[in-house]
C-alpha cells in the first residue's frame, strides 16, 4: 500500500490541496524552504508570533459576539459577560442597522432587534455602553456597509462620555469587500464602498490613532466556500486594496498599517489552521515590508481575532459544538491569536443564551488557567510537520495572490462576481462531499443518533422591543434640532459629491442625532446602491 493513501485508498490531501505525509523529518522542512522565514517571536517576519512573550505577558482578549433587541437589552448582556471575566466586547447589530436602514423603515419590518442590537441614533449608543469603562474594555463593532456611520457614532459617544478619542482603542469590522463575497450587508457600489473604507482609515489615523478602523475578514470568505489558503490569500488581497486606497491619498504606510487587523476562521484540520496562521503572519509582514516599504515593526503585524467557525458546527447533537469550540479555542491559542470569539453551541439554532455564552467564555478561561497555553510562545514551533506545512501553506497563498494580481486584482474580481462564483462552486462540492460521506461530519454523516428536539433554549424575539425602538427614534426626532440635522446631512451630501473625506461631516451629523438611515440616504443619493452580480460561472 502506498503510504500516502488512507486505508480506504484515498490520498490524504488537506483542504488547501497540500498532500499530507505519514511522517515528517528535518529533510522535509529543508525541502520546503527550511527555516528561512521562521525567525524569533516579535521579530520579522513574525511567523512565531508578533510579540516576544505573547500570552506570557497578556492572554488573548476574550470577546464573544453579542447583541439583540434594543440597546438596553444588550447593555445588560454586556455587563453579564464582563462580570464573568470577559475582557472585550464584540457588538452584533440587527440587519436594518447593518444595511443602513432605520427601525421604522418598511424594509426593517420584522427584523428590528432580531439578530443583533438595533441602533438608529447616537442616543442608542449612549444607552448601549452606559456604565462600561471604554478604557478598560475594548469594543469591536461588527458593522460593514454602515461602518463609517457607526464608527463616527462610537467615537462621538466615547467623547461625550469623557474618554480621550486620541487614546481610544477598539475595532470596527468595516471590511466591505468581503461583504460582497459573503455576509451580504453591502449598501453602496464597490468603488464608493472602497472609498468610504479609505475615509475611515484616513480619519482615524489622525483623530483616533489607537483605534483599529478595519478588521479584514478571511472568516466569511471561508464560510462562503473558500479553502484555508484562499481564505487568507484573499484577505491579504483585500487588505492591500484598502492600503492602496489610503496610500493614494498620500498617507504614509507607517501611519495606518499598524491599525489594520484581521479576522480568520478556524474550522477544519487542526494542523492546517495552525500552519495557515503562522504562514500568514510571515506573508503579511513581507507584503507590508517589501511591497509597501513599511519600517515600523507594528505596521507588519498580522493582528487577528480567531476562534469562530460557524460552518464547522452542526445542528445535529449540538452539545458536540461545545467540544468543537474547545478545539477551536485550542487551535487559536496554538496559533497566537490576539483575540478570541467562539461560536456558542446553540448558534445553529438561536441567538446564544447567557448559559451558552458563559460556557464559551469558560472554555477560553480553562485554556488560560488550567492548560498552560500561556506559558510558552509558539509551542508547536519546530515540529517537522508544522514547519513544513507552514512553508507549503505560505507558498500556496503566494501562488493564489499572484493569480489574483494576474487576473486584474481583487476589486475587479469581486465587482464582476468571479470570486463569489468560485467559492460558491467549492461550497457546492463540499456539500456534495458531506452528503456522500466523503467529507466526514460527526453527527451528520456518521455517528448519528435519533434525536428529538435537542435541549436548546430559544432566544425569544420580542415585538415589543422593536416597538420601543421605533418609539425612541420618534422621540429623538422630535427633540433634536431639526435645522442642525438638515444642515449636517447637507454637508454629508456635499462632502460625498465633492470627493472629500466624508468622515468629518458624518461625525457632525451623528452628533446632531441624525439617524443611520438618514445619513445612509444622504450617501446613497450621491453614491447610488450596489447591484449584486448573480453568476454561477467563474
Amino acid at each position, binding site marked *: 500500500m502506498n503510504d500516502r493513501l488512507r486505508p480506504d485508498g484515498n490520498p490524504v490531501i488537506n483542504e488547501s490541496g497540500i498532500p499530507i505525509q505519514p511522517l515528517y523529518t528535518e529533510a522535509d522542512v529543508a525541502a520546503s524552504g527550511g527555516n528561512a522565514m521562521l525567525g524569533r517571536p516579535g521579530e520579522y517576519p513574525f511567523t512565531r508570533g508578533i510579540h516576544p512573550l505573547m500570552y506570557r505577558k497578556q492572554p488573548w482578549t476574550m470577546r464573544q459576539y453579542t447583541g439583540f433587541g434594543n440597546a438596553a437589552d444588550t447593555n445588560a448582556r454586556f455587563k453579564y459577560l464582563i462580570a464573568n471575566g470577559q475582557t472585550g466586547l464584540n457588538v452584533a447589530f440587527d*440587519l436594518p442597522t447593518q444595511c443602513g*436602514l432605520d427601525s421604522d423603515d418598511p424594509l426593517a419590518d420584522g427584523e428590528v432587534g432580531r439578530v443583533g442590537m438595533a441602533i438608529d441614533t447616537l442616543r442608542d449608543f449612549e444607552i448601549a455602553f452606559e456604565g462600561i469603562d471604554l478604557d478598560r474594555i475594548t469594543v469591536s463593532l461588527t458593522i460593514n456597509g454602515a461602518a463609517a456611520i457607526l464608527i463616527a457614532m462610537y467615537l462621538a459617544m466615547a467623547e461625550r462620555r469623557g474618554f480621550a478619542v486620541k487614546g481610544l482603542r477598539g475595532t470596527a469590522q468595516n471590511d466591505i469587500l468581503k461583504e460582497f463575497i459573503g455576509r451580504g450587508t453591502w449598501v453602496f457600489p464597490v468603488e464608493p464602498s472602497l472609498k468610504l473604507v479609505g475615509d475611515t482609515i484616513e480619519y482615524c489615523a489622525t483623530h483616533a490613532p489607537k483605534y483599529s478602523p478595519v478588521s479584514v475578514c478571511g472568516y466569511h470568505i471561508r464560510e462562503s466556500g473558500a479553502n484555508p489558503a484562499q481564505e487568507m490569500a484573499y484577505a491579504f488581497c483585500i487588505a492591500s486594496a484598502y492600503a492602496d486606497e489610503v496610500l493614494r491619498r498620500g498617507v504614509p504606510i507607517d501611519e495606518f498599517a499598524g491599525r489594520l487587523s484581521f479576522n480568520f476562521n478556524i474550522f477544519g484540520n487542526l494542523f492546517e489552521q495552525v500552519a495557515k496562521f503562522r504562514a500568514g503572519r510571515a506573508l503579511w509582514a513581507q507584503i507590508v515590508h517589501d511591497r509597501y516599504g513599511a519600517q515600523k515593526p507594528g505596521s507588519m503585524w498580522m493582528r487577528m481575532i480567531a476562534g469562530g467557525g460557524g460552518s464547522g458546527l452542526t*445542528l*445535529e447533537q449540538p452539545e458536540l459544538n461545545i467540544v468543537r469550540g474547545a478545539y477551536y479555542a485550542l487551535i487559536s491559542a496554538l496559533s497566537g491569536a490576539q483575540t478570541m470569539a467562539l461560536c456558542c453551541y446553540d448558534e445553529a439554532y438561536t441567538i446564544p443564551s447567557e448559559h451558552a455564552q458563559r460556557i464559551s467564555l469558560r472554555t477560553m478561561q480553562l485554556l488560560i488557567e488550567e492548560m498552560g497555553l500561556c506559558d510558552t510562545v509558539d509551542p508547536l514551533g519546530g515540529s517537522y510537520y508544522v514547519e513544513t506545512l507552514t512553508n507549503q501553506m505560505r507558498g500556496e497563498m503566494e501562488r493564489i495572490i499572484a493569480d489574483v494580481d494576474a487576473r486584474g486584482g481583487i476589486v475587479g474580481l469581486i465587482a464582476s462576481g468571479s470570486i463569489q462564483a468560485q467559492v*460558491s462552486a467549492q461550497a457546492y462540492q463540499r456539500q456534495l462531499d458531506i*452528503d456522500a460521506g466523503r467529507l466526514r461530519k460527526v453527527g451528520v454523516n456518521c455517528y448519528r443518533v435519533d434525536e428529538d*428536539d435537542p435541549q436548546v433554549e430559544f432566544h425569544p424575539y420580542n415585538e415589543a422591543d422593536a416597538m420601543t425602538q421605533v418609539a425612541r427614534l420618534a422621540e429623538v426626532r422630535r427633540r433634536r434640532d431639526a435645522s442642525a440635522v438638515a444642515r449636517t446631512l447637507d454637508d454629508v451630501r456635499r462632502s460625498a459629491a465633492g470627493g472629500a473625506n466624508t468622515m468629518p461631516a458624518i461625525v457632525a451629523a451623528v452628533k446632531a442625532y441624525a439617524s443611520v438611515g438618514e445619513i445612509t440616504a444622504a450617501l446613497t443619493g450621491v453614491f447610488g446602491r450596489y447591484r449584486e452580480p448573480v453568476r*454561477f460561472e467563474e
Partner: protein
Amino acid sequence: MNSTTRARPIKVVLAKPGLDGHDQGAKVVARALMAAGMEVIYTGLRQTPEAIAQIAREEDVDVIALSSMAGSHLGFCRRLKPLLEEAGLDDRLWVIGGNLPRQDHEALRALGFKGIFPTGARLDDITAFIQRNSR
C-alpha cells in the same frame, strides 16, 4: 406531472427574503437544482415579498423557493402568501429552506409551504421532493 414527460424543465425562482445576507446555502441549492436539470432564477439578496411574487408571476415558475437564515421567515411568509395567491400562483409548489426551528414547521405548512428543508437537509432530498411535487 412526471419530469420524464414534461415539455420543459421545472422552473424555479429561488429567493433570499428580507435583509438576511447568508447566501451560501441558497447558491448551493441553486447549483443542485440546476445539476438536476431544472431552470433556476436566483434572485440575489434583499427581496421584498412584492418583488418575489412579481418575478414568480412574470417568469411563470413552477416552484417558489425561499432561503431564510436570520429568523424572520414566519412574518415574511405571512406577507408573501396573499401576494402569491393574488398572482394566481397558489397552484405552484412553495418550498422553504434554512434556519427553520421545528416549532415553526406547522405554521409554515399552514401558510402553504409544502416542502420545509431545515439546515442539514440533503441536496438529493430537496431535488427529489421538487421533482415529485411540482406541477
